[in-house]
């Protein structure tokens, strides 16, 4: 086994070095969150940071968003491809976002990479990725689900030198800003990204001063080996066999349902994932670039087998991946990818579902497995300035083997925070009218699936443009072990009025009149175990809290009228 090479560094020093490297990534993360400008990065922490060795291997990561690993995985490699090591200089910083040329996973995720030099030798990289609220796509926000080609999705940046020891390259910055809405905010976020890498470089210097380049390089090898060994030990805990899971997701309007299928092959300490049988490339923006797929796989394997596995390249070596060429999971130019999170959520859900077959009673039922992301934009009548408001709204988690699923939480490859209504209304000409759990949306079961959320947003005194992507508007998350499906999600304009109008899950350029309300409703998670096994106390509690309606309880759990609590 490759990971078992004899290693020289004492395992204790290794643990200390590892702790130090993770600390660097964490500090960079703090610096980025605190110094960025857009609410998307500051309040919602839609960013991640990492440290790489000189070969571009990931050695430490502070992730807020598991999918970001994808952009970070590819970008150093891409920089090295465009700029051979001997052309890199201390003080350089590179920017990239292109999924096909720059190692990215969709255009709004902008990566900044800074090479690190120790005694004038290239010794590593610090990097971070941040989700910019706009990148100059046809639809503001750049994540609309119905873009037809990447050329509609905004500015494409292959690895490009953004700064040198002399400072920022003005013409590159100008080019970048000229393509984005709200250029000032973009400039400030980008400045924050440069500053975060700088924090990392300083701290790396201290670590190198302490241990020396040679010892650190040896330690890096040993660290990655230790992670690989740990990952393989976890794989070995899974009974040998072939496990598969398949479900369908929603494409563009008029497109057929798209199958997402995964086969897991476990043999001893080897794990192979095969995605053949998944659908062909989509005409919309839900195609998945290679690095986004890998990041999703690493998330799902960690979550299924060993949540404490360090995030480094050692884990990656323990996993083999096979994807057919003509696949939604193997995006090729010029396929649009802006809404790839929809698909990634399904992939993560299916991998966990397949592992659940191998490890019965250990993993939860499917979560809502959608990525509900909305974008409002327009001109703020209070200031006359353009605005773009991006938000991902959480849904239900799957019921677990011994506990109900979490209600209204981000699942799988994302974990962004919400924007407080009070902050939102200060910043944008919008009003949050409701933000609440949706009764009966959790899949019934012995352990109920988590509930979806409802967020009603009213447009104030201007015409707004709405774009979004999402999934499970038609096909709900199924239950496990006899549990039932959760409810579906929806986008509805002016709910409850005569002008009520339902929007498809992948949509862009919807004009919302002043005063219009847009309701976002997110899907619930699947239930676990048969509903008839649900403990009466839990049913009563759900009834009393109003999370389950009396009608649903009577129908599903066969409650009689006198068992029902007062519905509230």
């Amino acid at each position, binding site marked *: 086994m490759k990971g078992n090479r004899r290693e020289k560094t*004492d*395992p*204790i*020093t*290794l*643990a*200390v070095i590892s702790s*130090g490297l993770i*600390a660097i990534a964490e*500090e960079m993360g*703090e610096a980025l*969150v*605190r*110094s960025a*400008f857009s*609410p998307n990065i*500051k309040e919602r922490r839609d960013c991640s940071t990492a440290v790489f060795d000189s070969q571009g291997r990931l050695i430490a990561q502070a*992730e807020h968003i598991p999918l970001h690993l994808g952009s970070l995985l590819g970008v150093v490699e891409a920089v090295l491809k465009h700029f051979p090591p001997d052309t890199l200089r201390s003080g350089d910083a590179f920017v990239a976002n292109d999924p096909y040329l720059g190692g990215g996973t969709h255009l709004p995720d902008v990566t900044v990479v800074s090479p690190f030099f120790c005694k004038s030798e290239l010794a590593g990289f610090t990097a971070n990725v941040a989700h910019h609220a706009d990148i100059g796509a046809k639809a503001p926000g750049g994540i609309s689900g119905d873009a037809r080609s990447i050329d509609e999705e905004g500015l494409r940046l292959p690895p490009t030198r953004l700064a040198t020891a002399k400072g920022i390259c003005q013409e590159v910055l100008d080019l970048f800003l000229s393509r984005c809405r709200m250029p*000032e*905010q973009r400039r*400030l976020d980008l400045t924050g990204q440069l500053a975060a890498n700088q*924090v990392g470089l300083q*701290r790396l210097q201290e670590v190198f001063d302490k241990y020396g380049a040679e010892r650190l390089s040896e330690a890096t090898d040993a660290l990655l080996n*230790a992670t*690989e*060994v*740990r*990952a393989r*030990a976890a794989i070995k805990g899974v009974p040998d066999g072939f496990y598969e899971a398949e479900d369908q997701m929603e494409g563009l309007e008029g497109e057929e349902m798209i199958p997402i299928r995964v086969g897991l092959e476990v043999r001893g300490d080897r794990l192979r994932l095969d995605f053949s049988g998944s659908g062909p490339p989509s005409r919309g923006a839900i195609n998945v670039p290679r690095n986004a797929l890998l990041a999703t796989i690493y998330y799902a394997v960690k*979550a299924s087998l060993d*949540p*404490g*596995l360090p995030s480094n390249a050692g884990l990656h070596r323990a996993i083999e991946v096979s994807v057919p060429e003509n696949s939604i999971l193997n995006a090729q130019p010029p396929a649009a990818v802006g809404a790839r999170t929809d698909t990634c959520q399904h992939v993560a859900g299916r991998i*966990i579902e397949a592992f659940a077959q191998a490890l019965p009673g250990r993993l939860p039922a499917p979560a809502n497995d959608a990525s509900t992301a909305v974008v409002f934009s327009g001109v703020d009548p209070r200031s006359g300035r353009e605005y773009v408001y991006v938000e991902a709204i*959480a849904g239900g988690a799957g019921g*677990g083997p011994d*506990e109900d699923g*979490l209600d*209204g*939480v981000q*699942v799988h490859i994302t*974990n962004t*925070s919400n924007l*407080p*209504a*009070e*902050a939102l*209304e*200060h910043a944008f000409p919008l009003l*949050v*009218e*409701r*933000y*609440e*759990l949706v009764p009966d949306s959790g899949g019934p079961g012995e352990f109920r699936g988590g509930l979806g959320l409802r967020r009603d947003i009213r447009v104030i005194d201007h015409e707004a443009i709405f774009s979004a992507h999402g999934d499970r508007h038609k096909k709900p998350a199924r239950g496990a072990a006899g549990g039932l499906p959760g409810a579906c999600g929806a986008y509805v304009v002016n709910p409850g009025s005569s002008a009520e109008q339902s929007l498809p899950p992948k949509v862009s350029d919807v004009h919302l009149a002043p005063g219009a309300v847009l309701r976002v409703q997110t899907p619930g998670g699947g239930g676990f175990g048969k509903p008839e096994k649900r403990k009466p106390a839990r049913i009563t509690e759900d009834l*009393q*809290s*109003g*999370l389950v309606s009396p009608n649903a309880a009577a129908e599903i759990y066969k409650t009689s009228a006198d068992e029902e609590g*007062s519905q509230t």
Partner: protein
Amino acid sequence: MAWRIGIDIGGTFTDLVAANLETGETCLYKSPTTPANLAQGVAAGLAALGEKVPLRAISFLAHGTTAGTNALIEEKGARTGLITTDGFRDLLEIARQQRPSLYDLRARKPRPLIPRRLRREVVERMQFDGSILKPLDVESVKRELALLAEEGIESLAICLLHSYANSSHERAVRDMARESLPDVYVTASCDLLPRFREYERLSTTVINTYLGPLMNGYLNHLSERIMEAGISAAPHIMQSNGGIVPLEEARLKPAGTVLSGPAAGAAAAADLSARLDIERAIAIDMGGTSTDVCLIEGGLPASAAGRKVGGYAVELPGVDVRCIGAGGGSLLWVDAGGLLNVGPHSAGAHPGPACYAQGGEEPAITDAFLVLGRIPPSGLLQGEMTLDPEAARKAVTERIAAPLEVSLERAALGAVELTVANVRRAIETITVAEGRDPREFSLIAAGGAGPLIAAELAAEMQIDEVIIPASPGNFSAGGLLVSDLRRDWVRTHLMAAAKDNLPELIDGFHSLEREACEWLADNLVSDGKAVLLRRVAARYVGQDYELEIEVPSGRLTERELDGLVADFHQAHERHYGYALPGRPIEFVDLMITAVGQVPAAPSAPSVRSDKKGAAKKAERSVYLSGKEEFRDCAVYDRANLGVGEVVEGPGIIEQYDSTTYLPAACRAHVDEMGNLRLTRNGRR
């Protein structure tokens, strides 16, 4: 002769500390904590203390309690109801919609403190600028209050959207609630925390009401016991901001006590650094399960607004104490990849580390200390607590050394090194990540275990000086003897930092100042003892994260405004590495802190040694860091180390409540106040 006493209730012991306000003489008494009725343990302790200190001569009493913290973590608060804006009752549960762990699919969120059926909505809506979009529907308020009354709630939280900008709806609901539910404990968010960002304000308000009835009952018992003991001084209660308030005020703000334990330690560290005239210090307090870390600058602990207790957000201004899961009881384990890990799981008091011989088989940090010879094999607390060195060696060998294929001592030392690295990481997040250089700080190391790693931590971080206070294990309780009256006012007041807004800025501060001055007067603080500190939380327009800037006292004119703007740019540069001169700035929160200085004891007189060397009491074999070998080292009795005495490392300095490890090439000297000052040879 007047005495000041402090009563600190911990998980195991209730500590009573007393200081003579004229001589500085101190004494300490420990009484077992009585969880069923905490005031009982206090009464027992006071009775015993009465044998040493004339209780009638007590002129000042400060009390630190974890009653609120425990009730919160154990979910033992009141049956609480909530009135909130239509459409938002689930916010308490949704919080920031993030899951508690990125990868652990079984991680749970804390249960909401108020069940959904008791979270009620009323029809009303304020806007961000304080204008009324939808007037308060009084009928809906009546209806919901009636329903909550029927449900038998004991307390009620009121939190409406944008109430920081216009509190009229909240106040109306509050007044109606007080009238129709006279026995219910009521808190409106505008009275507790008029600050924007609704989830944090809501959560804090809910915690306050959830704890209110219980804390009231507890404070009643406590004040009765104190009076019965013959103490006439009015009791004061320690707050999370490191200050104390009169007991009556703590009734209204129990949420302000939930982080008071760590805050007392920070207050003690701040006082020590002020007495020693140390400008910048990092204070660590390493106990059995965790380590608290706090920065002290200019004699004041760093402050922070956002904290979490048991997963619940508490947004009141407080001392910024970071807690990490690294203490004497933190478990050592080897992961499947063959890497050593320390914590975050702890052996706790039961079964405790393997060396406690109470059935614990997994090694903890304390076992590593014992293997290395740092703590006395004869036991802790001067033998009151016996240890089993063989059990420690067995646990570390079997669980760590054997799987890692390293020697027993290397494994134990490695565990200490990793602990040092973890504490260092916590310190760096409050120093390096915010633009401060830890090398410019001194290290104050307290807690039973802090002095065991302090020298190595300092060397690792290139900190030149370490201060080990006289009584490290009781350091935090000592904070009760030195803390001042302190109260914070914060109000969100969003405005551009422009001269047109000067009148609004002045008015805003003025109204807060008026409240602060009234409070100082109510508490009989004389002018000479009163301090008002003004700060403003500011940001560049478009940012959502604020930096606090000190506002000079006195009249605010354009000149001061320009100064604030310049200070903000500078602070931004310091914290984030860049500034954006020319970009407009906005003020978000106006803040005032009122401090009323209360009598504190002078520094305690220290032992004068006439016989140098009398403190050396034994020798034992200690495995030395750096040298990686056992060597016979001198063991000193700290009680016999006199002022001015110097001890050269390697060595061990033992005392009742702690042990100090002095590595080779490190020396300790006893300063005038009885603190140990550790320096590395070749420095200073």
